């Protein structure tokens, strides 16, 4: 009984971690992708703004799916943070400042 409760608690913790990674981390990933793409794309201002927004809107659900398809919740967080770091670095290299 105790062990099954502990197992359930563990599962709930894992799911909560994935939901936060997918919703919050996924949004952060998409926002940073929008910023990086807006800074990097060799287009005029309105064109780059729209294309970066479109990419970000596709990115969010994909990140959400990614967060629920990894083996553990830790992997989900690792993937999200790694993605944020990469696109964040691209944005900063391209001249964006938070």
């Amino acid at each position: 009984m105790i062990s099954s409760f502990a197992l359930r608690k563990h599962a709930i913790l894992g799911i909560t971690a994935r939901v936060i990674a997918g919703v919050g981390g996924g949004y952060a990933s998409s926002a940073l992708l929008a910023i990086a793409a807006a800074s990097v794309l060799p287009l005029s201002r309105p064109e780059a703004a729209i294309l970066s927004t479109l990419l970000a809107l596709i990115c969010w659900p994909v990140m959400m799916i990614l967060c629920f398809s990894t083996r553990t919740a830790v992997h989900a967080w690792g993937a999200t943070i790694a993605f944020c770091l990469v696109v964040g670095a691209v944005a900063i290299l391209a001249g964006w400042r938070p």
Partner: protein
Amino acid sequence: MKPTFRACMAWLHTWSGLTMGWLLLAMTLAGTLSVFRPEINTWMRPELRTPSTVNPDMATQTAIQWLSIHAAKSPTWYLEAANARAPYVQALWLEGDAYQDHALDPQTGSPSPLRDTRGGDFFYRFHFELQLPYPWGRLIAAVAAMALVLILLTGIIAHKRIFLDFFTFRPNKGQRSWLDAHNLLGVAALPFHLMIAFTGALTLANMLMPWGLTTLYHQDFSALEHDFNPAGIERPASGKAGTLAPIGPVLADINHRFAPNRLIRLTISNPSDAASVIQAIAAPSASGVGVETHTLSYDGTTGTLLAEHKESRPIMGFYRFLYGLHVAHFAPVFTRWLYFLSGLGLAGVIATGLHLWTSKRCQRHRGFGFRLVERVNVGMIAGIPTAFACFFLANRLLPPSLATRAQIEVQTVFCVWAILLLYAAVRPATVAWRDLLGMATLACLGVALLNGLPVTPLQIGVGVTALSLICLFSYATWRMARATKEKS
């Protein structure tokens, strides 16, 4: 054991669907009705004469004459031009601190002959503002649209047999039949569902994902405005009084430049100032899908053309195309019905999905969560159509001259909805299903009766829709009544 990818996606599909399903159902139904916003607007103003007698340019001219007498102090007038679908000018202007949004009679230019109603605009606004203050309604709607994209994608991954689902329906098998119906409705218009969800999120992208814009424009709103609307002229009021040039020649020039398209919206800023500007936007109907692809600006006092813009930038054009796909202003009548039916299909997918959540669990432990979902399902799935039908009833039954009748119409919808949710909460689920579906039938019957004998195309459209819904709801009522009898 590690669950498979497909099982994970099925789990995500189930729970994101359950949490967002009710909101998405309300938005979907309101959006589906918005396909026929001009038609509903016209239906809800029976004082209007027949569309064939209305000349759009004459209607615009009389509207501007009326506005220059009664709304001269407003900093801007926004006018939606009359057309065959909605034979009157819809005008928005500022009076004191309050925006006035009224249909103007094409013969007199005054709003008074027409009953005060939100008309189809109620459904249109509710679809993305949820009757909540700015920006909360739009933000919630934008998140819901993104959630729908996610729910659709995970649903596609979870179901392996997309093609076979087309030909699979096994009735009277309980949960199996509901799953078949869910899959069949989902697969039948899948590209439409994906398109409408994604483009819906895109229309609110400036609320949801403004980071690309803010990175490039920072706080430079006038540059942003200019890049998105290159023919827009921003000119502050000069302080000197001025009168508008005769609008007839300006309209003639607009029509000439827009041909084969027609004028959809006219914005007149500082109408009683020497620095007034008239901006015209073309409807895309005859030449493409995208919205706001051709814009003109005129000097208000002289009527000379100041700027013209035809969209030729590829990505901006693509954005306008996606936007146009969502709002469907381009759509001829057949396409509009396809939009309407696919929208109803999406509502059906959501409703069957929500119902599946309970029917899968009815053999197992019935906790508080189960009972909550079961009850709210009844109040939403049967309650929203009934409440929306009551908007049509209130429009025709409230006295036309009643003060604040437009607000009372809207309040009717939410009162009915709340009462039905409450009723579903206190009655056993099967009884509540039977009663609420019965009410939905009666409400649709009321709409069909108030519609009168179907003579005009508008009355035929409303009549056929109401009759189809009566058939659907009365069949469902009959099934639920049988189920209630078997139980007792």
